[in-house]
């Protein structure tokens, strides 16, 4: 087990390296010059040249790559061209709302998704099953940007239950901070619930067919006990995989939702950075998402070991 973890951790190195290489060259190949954005619409060529030099952007690409790589290993992602601060610091600051939304969405998605999945499996081929299938299909079929706008229109613009957008940190305003996060979280939770419900349903259906469940039934145990005590536990393995894999996708999904609700998280920062070529921030955002993804996958694989002792690692 320990060897397995070490091996997996070592495997992260080449992956992150490839990600870093792609991130660096993608961002530097983008058309559009950050310096011109900084200087505004009417800038002259001499101004552009002057600022370029002061930012070190006049040096050859390959030199900049190695310097950048060396700095990253030291944990220094450079200085944002717009945010007036080191990228690493900004990234950590911006992670808070993003994680809050993602966790909120995940909790919502898991509870609704598992519930729907169980209901569907227990009532296999009945109306509740059809209902659950429809809802979960809708969950994975509605574009999140559209859903976000609809929720915003109905609950914020028309009913005024939530602020239309923006964000105030928990430290400053306490629990009313969550008022800003509810709609974005619901938007993302919808898709999560859909994915999780589908997975729970099929895993449960498989489990319910197993011999030991039949045995339990024949022993006269109530359906509730069978479902929650025996079947659920044994159906969790694939469900956890979905949750793990999708938490990373979820963190990517916040890009669009954060932009719509104007929440200053990592996604909003990344989209803004792309739109104005804040290169160090784009690079850090890509690496950030990739690292989260591989680490989460590692956790998923490790959790297999705990939940299913049959799996052995070499």
């Amino acid at each position, binding site marked *: 087990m320990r060897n397995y973890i070490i091996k997996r951790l070592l*495997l992260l190195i*080449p*992956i*992150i390296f*490839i*990600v870093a290489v*792609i991130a660096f060259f*993608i*961002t530097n*190949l*983008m*058309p559009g010059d950050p310096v011109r954005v900084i200087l505004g619409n009417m800038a002259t060529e001499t101004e552009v040249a002057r600022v370029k030099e002061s930012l070190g952007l006049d040096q050859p690409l390959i030199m900049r790559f190695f310097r950048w790589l060396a700095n990253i290993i030291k944990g220094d992602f450079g200085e944002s061209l717009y945010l007036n601060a080191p990228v690493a610091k900004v990234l950590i600051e911006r992670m808070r709302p993003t994680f809050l939304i993602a966790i909120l969405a995940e909790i919502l998605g898991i509870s609704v998704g598992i519930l729907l999945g169980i209901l569907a499996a227990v009532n296999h081929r009945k109306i509740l099953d059809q209902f659950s299938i429809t809802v979960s*299909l*809708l969950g*994975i*079929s*509605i*574009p*999140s*940007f*559209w859903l976000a*706008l*609809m929720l915003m*229109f109905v609950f914020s*613009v028309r009913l005024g239950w939530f602020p239309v957008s923006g964000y105030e940190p928990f430290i400053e305003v306490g629990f009313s901070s969550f008022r800003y996060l509810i709609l974005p979280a619901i938007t993302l939770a919808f898709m999560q619930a859909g*994915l999780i419900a589908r*997975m729970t349903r*099929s*895993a449960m259906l*498989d489990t319910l067919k197993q011999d030991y469940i039949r045995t339990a039934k024949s022993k006269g145990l109530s359906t509730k006990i069978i479902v929650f005590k025996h079947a659920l536990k044994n159906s969790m393995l*694939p469900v956890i*995989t*979905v949750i793990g*894999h*999708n938490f*990373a*996708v979820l*963190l*990517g*999904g916040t*890009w*669009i939702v954060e*932009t719509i609700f104007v929440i200053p998280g990592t996604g909003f920062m*990344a*989209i803004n950075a*792309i739109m104005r070529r804040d290169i160090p921030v*784009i690079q850090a955002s*890509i690496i950030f*998402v*990739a*690292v989260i*993804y*591989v680490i989460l996958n590692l956790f998923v694989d490790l959790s297999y070991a705990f939940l299913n002792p049959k799996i052995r690692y070499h």
Partner: protein
Amino acid sequence: MLFLKKYKRYKHPYITTSIIILIIIAFLSLFAPLLTDYNPVRNDARNRLQPPSYQHFLGTDQFGRDVFTRILYGIRTSMEVGLAVVLLTVIFGGIVGVMAGYYSQIDKIVMRILDALMAFPGIIIAISLAAIWGAGKLNIILALSFAYFPKMARIVRSAVISIKDLDYVDSARSVGAKDSRIIFKYILKNSASPIMVQATFNFALAILDEAALSFLGVGIMPPAPSLGAMVTDARTYMVVAPWMILAPGIMIILAVLSLNLLGDGLRDLLDPHLKNTLKK
């Protein structure tokens, strides 16, 4: 074909429903020019933001263009992008997957690269690539294919690995069949099911992601109609012209929903063991 035979036997309700919807959508997009008197890109700005009426079923947008017409052509764009992405994904994913699965010498390297590529959520790769190449149908297709192909490659690879050491493949090899013949005759034929299922889901995903990219302004170049871009436009007019935002959204949902339904149906039908494979 295997699929048709099976379908004839089981008459799976998901597949029936989704195929009916998809045929309607295909009909709408193929015969769009016959179904409407309007041109999707011609302006009539003096009649902008008209509510739905007899002349304009779904009203007009900020340029006075007929929203119904733009939706017909918009879903056409979505279908084109979806089909092209699926095709490219299958081709590239197939090639890389077969290579990695069949030739174990390169498997490790290819897998590491695929791992790295999959570490980016697809939409982020697509946004970055679209920002590099600029908006446009071709660029979106390439960006999305690039984002999806690693997953496809992995699926093909595992299918290949599970098949390549089976007895009948071994025996083919022992009688001196060439690699290319083995790959085409035995392996690809038998890994068709997972590829088909994944391709269907990719189709749905491509429609969603094209809409999302166009929504962000890095997708289809205006004025060409795209459902996602229509939602972006409608955003500004949400309060005064809600018809502009409802219609394209519902159209996207309909198309994606029926494709996902089809994917589920195919999976049930073709390979019950695949149930636990992830959509993404």
